[in-house]
């Protein structure tokens, strides 16, 4: 099983570096194409109470369900 923090656990305003995506090929491909690539920094802009979250990667803003965000593994960036 995969251990370690994933994107869905980040709080509003937190940033982290993407370390990998654990998902079937098709889904992984899709997430990567939308900008969720290993090595890039992701920031959680907002989270809704029950629904999706907004994530910023560079110039792109995405809304994604937590279920999908949980597939994106991260390492926490040092606080700035």
């Amino acid at each position: 099983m995969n251990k370690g923090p994933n994107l869905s656990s980040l709080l509003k305003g937190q940033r982290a570096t993407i370390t990998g995506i654990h998902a079937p090929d098709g889904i992984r491909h899709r997430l990567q194409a939308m900008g969720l690539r290993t090595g890039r920094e992701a920031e959680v802009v907002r989270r809704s109470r029950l629904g999706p979250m907004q994530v910023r990667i560079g110039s792109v803003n995405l809304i994604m369900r937590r279920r999908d965000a949980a597939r994106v593994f991260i390492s926490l960036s040092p606080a700035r």
Partner: protein
Amino acid sequence: MKRLAIVGMPNTGKSTFFNRLTGSSSRVGNWPGVTVDLLSARVVLGGNVIEVVDLPGIYDLHGFSDDEQIVRSFLENNPVEVYGVILNATQLDHQLPMALQLSQLGVKTVVLINMADEADQLGVRIDTQALSAGLKCPVALFSARHGSGFNEARETLSTALEQARPVSLALLRKELHADDQLVEYAERLIQQSVSAPTRLVRETTERIDRILLHPVVGLPLFFLAMLLVFQAVYTLGAPLQDSVAWLLEGFRDMALAPLAKVLPAGLYGFLIDGLYDGIGTVASFVPVIILFFFFMALVEDSGYLARAAYLTDALMARLGLDGRGFVMLLMGFGCNVPALMGTRVMRSRSMRLLSMLVIPFSLCSARLQVFVFITTALFAPSQAPLVLFGLYLVSFAAAFLTALLFGQHLKSDEPFVLELPPYRLPVLRQVLLRGWHEVSHFLKRASTFIVTGVVMVWLLTHYPAGGTIGGEGTFANMLGYWLSPILDPIGISADMAVILMFGFVAKEIVIGAIVAMTGLNGDALNGYLATQMDSLQAISFMLFVLLYTPCLSTLATQRSESRSWGFVSVSVAWSLGLAWSVSFGVYQTARWLGY
């Protein structure tokens, strides 16, 4: 004729560019290997007529989403001389790999970098020469919204088209299956040719989102916005629909009827009451489709539709729909037809089909007319609003039940990840063109079906012989009696069954049909209705009318949007079954309880 295909990611202004390049001459059409309609147009570029095709926005040439497969199979089956790749200047880091994917296929590619104005404001500097050298293809930087740099981009395309030779499709197919390492190359190239702030924060968008996506006020604001759009579409639409009807009627009475008088009665009836009324039914949808897409384009182009998805996703995810489906469901309460067409914003086919299965349960304004008429005739003024409210609740319940049941089978395994574009002011021209395209699409795809249906119902209710429309001796009347074993248990009489057949064509003509069948009006008509059914039968009748097939035009649209008779059959069977079961349950339970 040489062919130019426009590709790019969503939110790059692809359609804006396409529309600026082609004007209003574009049309939808079928293509080999592709299961959806694509927009294309013929334009003169550099003295030659060329064909421009607008492909769906995709994130990846090698992806597995429905749209990505469409684009790939288009590329594999249709020879294209030049590919115009639209990139968003503010997101080059994110988008360049797609341009590389294409140029590495060995096809002639022109990189069209749009939104130069926004990039400028955000402090993004792009060295087009360095990019062009790195990509080994021409690069143009422009703004499709404002037109700056557009002529140069046109020139670049024109030159590329002149030089281009067709590419072997076989070769292309092979190449499409093998390429990699583009991302790293793209990143190196970006470092050499683009300088941008490390984090692009759009102040205005952030500020607006802080209010519109607010955890507490966001959702109420969404419903308010929807209410406004709804009101705008249907308060403006109703008088327009009336005037179209008035014009058509005037034309019939003043010009057509006197001219056709020379014809034998049977042919006269067929032409004037059958065919012409069928055309009238089609025409009555035109104003509301134009208005609907005018306002939906505003909602979509401004960037708000993606926000609506964010706000309503918590509920929609449980139903297997996404928030955009919810917007369409709400709009369906005005008219189902444009709402069904609007589901095209959803790019996953299974999610679209599910939304199209759900939308017909929205209690549209045509059904509301029937219910208002019946409730005022048969219920006390204090009860009537409660009955209407109850019908709205049933409408929502049926929609949610359908989503829950069919959501299991139409489950989409696509991740729900949506780009949140910055807020932009919609371009008027763009918004108007959208309405025009949708109307021509509707006329082309649905009109034959609707006219045929209207004519068939006319035949049923007038032949073989009969004194009154749908009366004794007509097919419709016989059908009504044959159906009585099914309709008796839900309290619907044979005469009312004939009315249901009219209602199948359009709910707008139900009241007119009752008037025509009985020859009664006003209080006398209300009195007649009271002899036909008691209040319980009326409730059963209205539940049935609410849930069984909305109208012929809805079916025609479901068919043209899904391209599948199988889907339409499932939808019809399900709504008929649900309508009968609900009416049966309510009617028999209430009878059993002694009402």
